[in-house]
Protein backbone atom coordinates (compact mmCIF):
# COMPACT_ATOMS: atom_id res chain seq x y z
CA UNK A 1 0.00 0.00 0.00
CA UNK A 2 1.15 3.53 -0.72
CA UNK A 3 0.09 6.69 1.12
CA UNK A 4 -0.78 9.78 -0.91
CA UNK A 5 -0.64 13.14 0.90
CA UNK A 6 -2.43 16.22 -0.41
CA UNK A 7 -1.15 19.53 0.95
CA UNK A 8 -2.84 22.92 0.90
CA UNK A 9 -5.71 23.39 -1.50
CA UNK A 10 -5.10 19.92 -2.96
CA UNK A 11 -6.66 18.60 0.21
CA UNK A 12 -9.96 20.20 -0.80
CA UNK A 13 -9.68 18.74 -4.31
CA UNK A 14 -9.05 15.28 -2.89
CA UNK A 15 -11.66 15.62 -0.18
CA UNK A 16 -9.15 14.45 2.45
CA UNK A 17 -5.58 15.22 3.49
CA UNK A 18 -4.46 11.71 2.62
CA UNK A 19 -5.46 8.57 0.82
CA UNK A 20 -4.24 5.00 0.96
CA UNK A 21 -3.77 3.24 -2.37
CA UNK A 22 -3.18 -0.47 -2.76
CA UNK A 23 -0.42 -1.10 -5.31
CA UNK A 24 0.26 -4.42 -7.02
CA UNK A 25 3.96 -3.54 -7.19
CA UNK A 26 6.27 -0.73 -8.39
CA UNK A 27 3.94 1.64 -10.25
CA UNK A 28 4.84 4.60 -12.45
CA UNK A 29 3.30 7.95 -11.51
CA UNK A 30 0.91 7.71 -14.46
CA UNK A 31 -0.39 4.44 -13.09
CA UNK A 32 -1.00 6.02 -9.70
CA UNK A 33 -2.83 8.95 -11.24
CA UNK A 34 -5.01 6.61 -13.32
CA UNK A 35 -6.42 5.27 -10.06
CA UNK A 36 -7.70 8.72 -9.05
CA UNK A 37 -10.63 10.82 -10.32
CA UNK A 38 -9.54 12.59 -13.52
CA UNK A 39 -10.09 16.07 -12.13
CA UNK A 40 -7.96 15.36 -9.07
CA UNK A 41 -5.27 13.71 -11.16
CA UNK A 42 -5.07 16.82 -13.35
CA UNK A 43 -4.78 19.08 -10.29
CA UNK A 44 -1.94 16.94 -8.89
CA UNK A 45 0.23 17.49 -11.95
CA UNK A 46 -0.74 21.11 -12.58
CA UNK A 47 2.13 23.60 -13.03
CA UNK A 48 3.80 24.46 -9.72
CA UNK A 49 2.83 21.28 -7.91
CA UNK A 50 5.93 19.50 -6.58
CA UNK A 51 6.21 15.97 -5.29
CA UNK A 52 8.07 14.39 -2.42
CA UNK A 53 8.56 10.65 -2.10
CA UNK A 54 9.23 9.54 1.47
CA UNK A 55 10.00 13.14 2.45
CA UNK A 56 12.42 13.91 -0.36
CA UNK A 57 11.60 16.16 -3.30
CA UNK A 58 11.59 14.20 -6.52
CA UNK A 59 11.06 14.88 -10.20
CA UNK A 60 7.85 13.44 -11.66
CA UNK A 61 9.85 12.26 -14.68
CA UNK A 62 10.44 8.55 -14.35
CA UNK A 63 8.92 8.48 -10.88
CA UNK A 64 7.95 5.02 -9.66
CA UNK A 65 5.97 4.43 -6.48
CA UNK A 66 6.44 1.22 -4.59
CA UNK A 67 4.60 -0.52 -1.84
CA UNK A 68 5.11 1.33 1.48
CA UNK A 69 6.00 4.64 -0.17
CA UNK A 70 4.56 7.96 0.85
CA UNK A 71 3.97 10.36 -2.03
CA UNK A 72 3.18 13.97 -1.13
CA UNK A 73 1.74 16.49 -3.56
CA UNK A 74 2.88 20.02 -2.68
CA UNK A 75 1.10 22.93 -4.39
CA UNK A 76 2.76 26.36 -4.49
CA UNK A 77 3.40 27.47 -0.90
CA UNK A 78 1.53 30.43 0.47
CA UNK A 79 4.43 31.11 2.83
CA UNK A 80 4.58 31.79 6.51
Amino acid at each position, binding site marked *: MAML*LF*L*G*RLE*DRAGAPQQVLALAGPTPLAGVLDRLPAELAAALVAPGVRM*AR*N*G*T*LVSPQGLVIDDGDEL*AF*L*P*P*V*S*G*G
Partner: protein
Amino acid sequence: MADVRLELAPFDSGAALAAFGAAHPQAGGIVSFLGQVRLEGEVEALELRHFAPLTLPGMEALAATAEARWLLAGLLVIHRSGLMHPGDPIVLVAAAARHRRDAFAAAEFIMDHLKSDSWFWKRELAAGQWRWIEPRAEDHADIARW
Protein backbone atom coordinates in the same frame (compact mmCIF):
# COMPACT_ATOMS: atom_id res chain seq x y z
CA MET B 1 24.26 27.55 15.97
CA ALA B 2 20.96 29.20 15.17
CA ASP B 3 17.98 28.35 17.34
CA VAL B 4 15.26 27.29 14.87
CA ARG B 5 11.89 26.03 16.03
CA LEU B 6 8.63 24.95 14.45
CA GLU B 7 6.01 25.46 17.14
CA LEU B 8 2.74 23.56 17.00
CA ALA B 9 1.14 25.49 19.88
CA PRO B 10 0.98 29.18 20.84
CA PHE B 11 4.32 30.55 22.08
CA ASP B 12 5.27 33.53 24.22
CA SER B 13 7.17 35.82 21.88
CA GLY B 14 8.14 38.24 24.66
CA ALA B 15 9.68 35.51 26.78
CA ALA B 16 11.50 34.05 23.78
CA LEU B 17 12.93 37.43 22.85
CA ALA B 18 13.93 38.21 26.43
CA ALA B 19 15.77 34.88 26.71
CA PHE B 20 17.52 35.52 23.41
CA GLY B 21 18.63 39.00 24.54
CA ALA B 22 19.90 37.64 27.84
CA ALA B 23 21.88 34.97 25.98
CA HIS B 24 23.69 37.55 23.86
CA PRO B 25 24.99 40.30 26.16
CA GLN B 26 28.02 40.85 23.94
CA ALA B 27 26.01 41.52 20.81
CA GLY B 28 25.40 45.23 21.05
CA GLY B 29 22.33 45.12 18.82
CA ILE B 30 19.34 42.84 18.39
CA VAL B 31 16.84 43.21 15.56
CA SER B 32 13.60 41.31 15.86
CA PHE B 33 10.54 40.80 13.74
CA LEU B 34 7.29 39.63 15.28
CA GLY B 35 4.43 38.69 13.01
CA GLN B 36 1.01 38.25 14.55
CA VAL B 37 -2.34 37.21 13.17
CA ARG B 38 -3.94 40.51 12.20
CA LEU B 39 -7.08 41.65 13.90
CA GLU B 40 -9.00 42.81 10.87
CA GLY B 41 -12.09 42.33 8.82
CA GLU B 42 -13.93 39.08 9.23
CA VAL B 43 -10.98 36.78 9.69
CA GLU B 44 -11.74 34.59 12.67
CA ALA B 45 -8.86 32.17 12.42
CA LEU B 46 -5.79 31.31 10.42
CA GLU B 47 -4.36 27.87 9.89
CA LEU B 48 -0.89 27.04 8.70
CA ARG B 49 -0.11 23.54 7.53
CA HIS B 50 3.40 22.25 7.15
CA PHE B 51 5.06 19.15 5.69
CA ALA B 52 7.27 17.78 8.41
CA PRO B 53 10.05 16.31 6.26
CA LEU B 54 10.67 19.65 4.53
CA THR B 55 9.41 22.56 6.65
CA LEU B 56 11.79 22.60 9.62
CA PRO B 57 14.81 21.47 7.56
CA GLY B 58 14.02 24.32 5.14
CA MET B 59 13.92 26.81 8.00
CA GLU B 60 17.24 25.47 9.31
CA ALA B 61 18.83 25.77 5.89
CA LEU B 62 17.58 29.34 5.61
CA ALA B 63 19.06 30.22 9.01
CA ALA B 64 22.38 28.65 8.02
CA THR B 65 22.42 30.72 4.84
CA ALA B 66 21.89 33.90 6.84
CA GLU B 67 24.63 32.94 9.29
CA ALA B 68 27.04 32.36 6.43
CA ARG B 69 26.18 35.67 4.81
CA TRP B 70 26.22 38.05 7.78
CA LEU B 71 28.35 38.19 10.89
CA LEU B 72 25.86 37.28 13.60
CA ALA B 73 26.33 36.64 17.30
CA GLY B 74 23.04 34.75 17.47
CA LEU B 75 19.96 33.93 15.45
CA LEU B 76 16.50 32.84 16.57
CA VAL B 77 13.76 31.69 14.19
CA ILE B 78 10.41 30.50 15.55
CA HIS B 79 7.47 29.76 13.26
CA ARG B 80 4.04 28.50 14.19
CA SER B 81 2.08 25.84 12.40
CA GLY B 82 -1.48 24.89 13.21
CA LEU B 83 -4.59 26.86 14.14
CA MET B 84 -4.20 30.49 15.21
CA HIS B 85 -6.45 33.36 16.20
CA PRO B 86 -6.11 37.15 15.86
CA GLY B 87 -3.26 38.42 18.04
CA ASP B 88 -1.44 35.07 18.15
CA PRO B 89 2.22 35.20 17.15
CA ILE B 90 2.97 33.49 13.83
CA VAL B 91 6.67 34.15 13.50
CA LEU B 92 9.48 35.59 15.57
CA VAL B 93 12.92 36.21 14.08
CA ALA B 94 15.71 37.78 16.09
CA ALA B 95 19.26 38.46 14.97
CA ALA B 96 22.01 39.61 17.31
CA ALA B 97 25.11 41.20 15.87
CA ARG B 98 27.92 43.53 16.71
CA HIS B 99 26.99 45.71 13.74
CA ARG B 100 23.35 46.58 13.48
CA ARG B 101 23.39 46.56 9.67
CA ASP B 102 24.10 42.81 9.76
CA ALA B 103 21.27 42.20 12.20
CA PHE B 104 18.74 44.20 10.15
CA ALA B 105 19.75 42.54 6.88
CA ALA B 106 19.69 39.02 8.29
CA ALA B 107 16.27 39.47 9.91
CA GLU B 108 14.73 40.95 6.78
CA PHE B 109 16.32 38.30 4.55
CA ILE B 110 14.90 35.54 6.70
CA MET B 111 11.45 37.12 6.80
CA ASP B 112 11.36 37.59 3.03
CA HIS B 113 12.19 33.93 2.50
CA LEU B 114 9.92 32.60 5.23
CA LYS B 115 7.06 34.60 3.74
CA SER B 116 7.56 33.46 0.17
CA ASP B 117 9.33 30.16 -0.17
CA SER B 118 9.02 28.28 3.09
CA TRP B 119 6.98 25.09 3.21
CA PHE B 120 3.73 26.37 4.64
CA TRP B 121 0.21 26.39 3.31
CA LYS B 122 -2.20 28.88 4.78
CA ARG B 123 -5.93 29.15 5.00
CA GLU B 124 -8.27 31.68 6.59
CA LEU B 125 -11.62 31.25 8.25
CA ALA B 126 -14.01 34.11 7.48
CA ALA B 127 -17.80 34.07 7.69
CA GLY B 128 -17.65 30.39 8.56
CA GLN B 129 -15.75 29.48 5.38
CA TRP B 130 -12.16 28.28 5.11
CA ARG B 131 -10.28 29.65 2.13
CA TRP B 132 -6.74 28.70 1.03
CA ILE B 133 -4.39 31.65 0.51
CA GLU B 134 -2.58 31.67 -2.81
CA PRO B 135 1.04 32.82 -3.21
CA ARG B 136 1.41 36.57 -3.69
CA ALA B 137 3.44 38.13 -6.51
CA GLU B 138 4.69 40.71 -4.00
CA ASP B 139 6.40 37.98 -1.98
CA HIS B 140 8.35 36.83 -4.99
CA ALA B 141 9.43 40.38 -5.73
CA ASP B 142 10.67 40.56 -2.14
CA ILE B 143 13.07 37.65 -2.47
CA ALA B 144 14.33 38.79 -5.84
CA ARG B 145 16.09 41.59 -3.90
CA TRP B 146 18.52 39.16 -2.29
